[in-house]
């Protein structure tokens, strides 16, 4: 029952963390990419530093699907502790490779899986001197075996090694030696290549492989952000690392060699968001990045920013909660807490990037919206987007971009006016004008989180207080007109399903796209699909939902949080919105959606 799978399968590599497998696995993925074959890599790593199970899942997809399919065709089982589970996960007809230096006792057998043993440790122990190399080269050796088994282009590998170890040619040689060892063993002992195999394509040119935290950090550089303050927390840390690194490279003043940026590691998240507010108050584009627990800690300050109308950008790279939860697993679980962060009647603008491309561009959008609306903008990304290896088209940059700094009176404007009042709705769009400290004494006012009237004065008077919070409510209506519109996906080429549609956000996108294609092919129907990009909801969102009897709202949390916002903010009858929820910490797969939607449609038709 060996069907050939050409350029379309999943390799999963089971390792122990701290053993240096990441470089080898990355090399494997990169070499496929350089063969012109679309590929993505997802990393499932533990919340510790050394000695626990870790997996890397490579999806090879000639059609360019970027999500998890939900299946594993080839397992590289390097971790004895998870061997049984790893074997169980392989799809019938699949393969498993393991280090046969230590034959697995009591190992589960599966007649429908081909098990390939290679004495990796034995080989490496013999070939290499240092303890370090013995461990590290094992990983490289299994990549070598895969080169033979999957028919990877050896020249690509060689090049990759040369580039990587340009500064240390002896390391390139050692790596090449290990590759060859694995390659030779596989060629000798197995029929190579397997029916599961690769063949060069031309489908990756103009593309890059990158994670969303890197592009978000770079996006903030291009947005003109100058100040960041953050507290380390997985999975947001690498976003700030990226920003800092790019700043070090790109933001030294050419004249003075001084930094045109300021990165401050805060003592905690309360302080991080406080610094961001202080900096934005003073006119810099400033941001922070965090994850769930940090969002909770920031909520008092977020309420202040909402009420005192201070711009701020916050990336929340979501991870599994509640509480500390599973810090190295992905979820979309902070939607409600971000939308209503802080006590009292408070609402925040949210953006939902779906991939590293969005992370880059939404960085500029986030800062522009924050300053235009004078309010915090929370970019709800997640671990899957932020830390996994995505294939995206090269990012394009419009060099004519100019930041929208919103309504800020400058010195001249202040000089020309009789008096400045901070919270007047001068233009009828519920957005007041602000001033920056140090510019002109006439612009001076007092920012406060306590009751204030439209002039900016302290108040405890009911009508004056109401006046301001009512305008804030109206400002949210303005926000709905300024945020990015949802992305509508319709396939007009075939008859469209009229009763049902799909609606989702963020990192569900890839899986839904594939699921739609598969469902069409399987004759399950051609479903329209809308991806929401922001909260408050653009009017197109309500218009879309209205067209169908039922809309399946797909999201990665337990409590159907997006659906909650849709119901409440768009005044939609909940019975029209059917939740489809994936919340086990793994990036949602296309399989899950195909099965889930099919089941729901069957139910719906029966009802």
């Amino acid at each position, binding site marked *: 029952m060996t069907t050939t799978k050409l350029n379309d399968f999943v390799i999963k590599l089971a390792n122990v963390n701290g053993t240096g497998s990441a470089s080898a696995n990355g090399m494997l993925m990169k070499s496929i990419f350089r063969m012109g074959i679309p590929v993505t890599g997802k990393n499932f790593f533990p919340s510790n530093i050394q000695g626990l199970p870790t997996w890397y899942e490579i999806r090879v997809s000639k059609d360019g699907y970027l999500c998890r399919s939900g299946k594993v065709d080839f397992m590289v089982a390097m971790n004895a502790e998870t061997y049984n589970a790893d074997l169980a996960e392989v799809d019938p007809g699949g393969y498993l490779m393991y280090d046969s230096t230590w034959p697995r006792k009591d190992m589960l057998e599966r007649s429908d899986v081909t098990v390939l043993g290679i004495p990796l440790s034995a080989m490496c122990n013999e070939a290499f001197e240092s303890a370090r190399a013995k461990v590290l080269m094992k990983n490289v050796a299994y990549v070598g075996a895969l080169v033979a088994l999957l028919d990877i282009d050896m020249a690509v590998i060689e090049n990759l090694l040369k580039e990587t170890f340009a500064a240390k040619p002896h390391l390139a040689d050692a790596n090449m030696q290990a590759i060859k060892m694995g390659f030779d063993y596989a060629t000798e002992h197995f029929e190579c290549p397997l029916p599961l195999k690769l063949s060069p394509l031309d489908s990756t040119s103009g593309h890059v492989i990158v994670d969303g935290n890197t592009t978000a950090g770079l996006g903030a550089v291009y947005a003109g952000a100058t*100040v960041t303050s953050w507290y380390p927390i997985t999975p947001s840390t690498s976003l700030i690392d990226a920003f800092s690194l790019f700043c070090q490279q790109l933001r030294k003043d050419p004249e003075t060699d001084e930094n045109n940026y300021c990165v401050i590691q805060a003592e905690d998240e309360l302080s991080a968001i406080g610094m961001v507010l202080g*900096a934005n108050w003073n006119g810099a584009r400033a941001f922070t990045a965090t994850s769930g627990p940090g969002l909770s800690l920031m909520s008092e300050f977020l309420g202040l920013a909402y009420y005192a109308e201070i711009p701020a950008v916050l990336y929340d790279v979501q991870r599994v909660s509640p509480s500390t939860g599973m810090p190295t697993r992905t979820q979309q679980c902070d939607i409600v807490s971000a939308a209503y962060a802080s006590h009292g009647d408070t609402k925040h603008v949210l953006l939902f990037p779906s991939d590293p491309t969005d992370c880059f561009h939404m960085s500029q959008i986030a800062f522009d919206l924050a300053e235009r609306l004078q309010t915090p903008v929370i970019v709800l990304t997640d671990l899957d987007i932020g830390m996994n290896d995505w294939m995206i088209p090269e990012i394009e940059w419009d060099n004519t971009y100019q930041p929208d700094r919103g309504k800020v009176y400058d010195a001249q404007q202040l000089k020309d006016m009789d008096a400045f009042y901070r919270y007047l709705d001068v233009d009828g769009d519920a957005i007041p004008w602000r001033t920056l400290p140090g510019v002109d004494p006439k612009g001076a006012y007092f*920012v406060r989180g306590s009751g204030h009237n439209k002039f900016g004065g302290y108040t405890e008077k009911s009508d004056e207080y109401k006046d301001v919070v009512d305008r804030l409510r109206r400002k949210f209506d303005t926000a709905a007109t300024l945020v990015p519109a949802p992305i509508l996906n319709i396939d007009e080429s075939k008859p469209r399903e009229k009763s049902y549609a799909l609606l989702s956000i963020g990192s569900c996108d890839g899986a839904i796209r594939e699921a739609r294609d598969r469902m069409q092919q399987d004759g399950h129907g051609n479903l329209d699909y809308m991806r929401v990009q922001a909260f408050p909801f653009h009017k197109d969102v309500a218009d879309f939902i209205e067209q169908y009897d039922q809309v399946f709202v797909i999201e990665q949390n337990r409590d159907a949080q997006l659906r909650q916002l849709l119901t409440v903010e768009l005044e939609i009858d909940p019975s029209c919105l059917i939740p489809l929820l994936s919340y086990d910490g793994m990036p949602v797969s296309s399989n899950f959606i195909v099965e889930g939607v099919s089941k729901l449609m069957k139910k719906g038709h029966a009802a």
Partner: protein
Amino acid sequence: MSFLKKPKISHPGLPTNDIGLTVRDYEGAMSTLCAGCGHDSISSAIMQAYFELSVEPHRVAKVSGIGCSSKTPTYFLGGAHGFNSVHGRMPSIATGANAANRELNYIGVSGDGDSLSIGLGQFGHAIRRNINMMYLIENNGVYGLTKGQFSASADRGSTAKKGEANPYSPIDPVLLAISLGCTFVGRGFSGDKEHLVPMLKSAIRHNGFALLDIISPCVTFNDHEGSTKSYAHTRANLRETVYADFTEHHEEIVAQVEPGEYKNIMMHDGSRVGFKRVDESYDPTNRISAISYIEEHRAKGEVVTGLLYLEEGSSEMHSVLGSNKQAMATLPYSKLNPGTETLARIQKRWR
């Protein structure tokens, strides 16, 4: 009410400073604090200090937390922007503001509750980063605004108190700051303007974090267990629905302490605080001897005042970080945008 601006009457006779302003140009809105509150005396010393230094008011940024003390920035330098933030977290606002614009002059006003209870962590870390700002703790040993609970600095001057002492050992912001590496540490008394104004001026001029702990009696909640005016007493002894919200009107306490002098000053409630002012021979540049000196006098129940520790030539945050001399906030976007070609170059590495 901060919005009630005091009518600005020009007094042609008033002396002007180097930039042609009178001390009235350094005033703010009318105070809503209790009559005689020490905090108001400090505000007036602040106006005097900025006036004497000829600082343009709008080049000052005022930041504070929450509390009676934290309200005071509304009451001075009306021409300066102010930020009355949340309780205990002003240091982070100040740090961010300073990061964005290092060219302004920063004054942070806080209370003992704001800085030593809820704000202890942020206070400590702002010191550690050596933010270039003047940081005032208007220290009254109580939470004024929430009606007189003990704060973490309670029990200052406990020798004269009649009743039971505050059960916990007090946090002395001066000792704490020195042990955290603060580069300018002083202590003053709200009633001694003569002494306070020059200290404020040095603190404003200091390049780095300048802490002034200013003893500032709360006239309303001098919350000794033994005091009949105390909140706890009121609650315990009167029927709940027939309680007094009466606050006595007081004169502000004024008392000058000369260099080297020891003076025992009576507070509104009859308690006494013994102030010991350091004299010219005191060496504020030696950390170890500064700590010993303060500790020794503290053991005797004396509150040492004056400039207690000074580390000159230290690096404030921006010079540590290597920031541009120009404010981040005013850098033109052309300096910040790496451009299209750079993006292409970066992306080559991602192939």
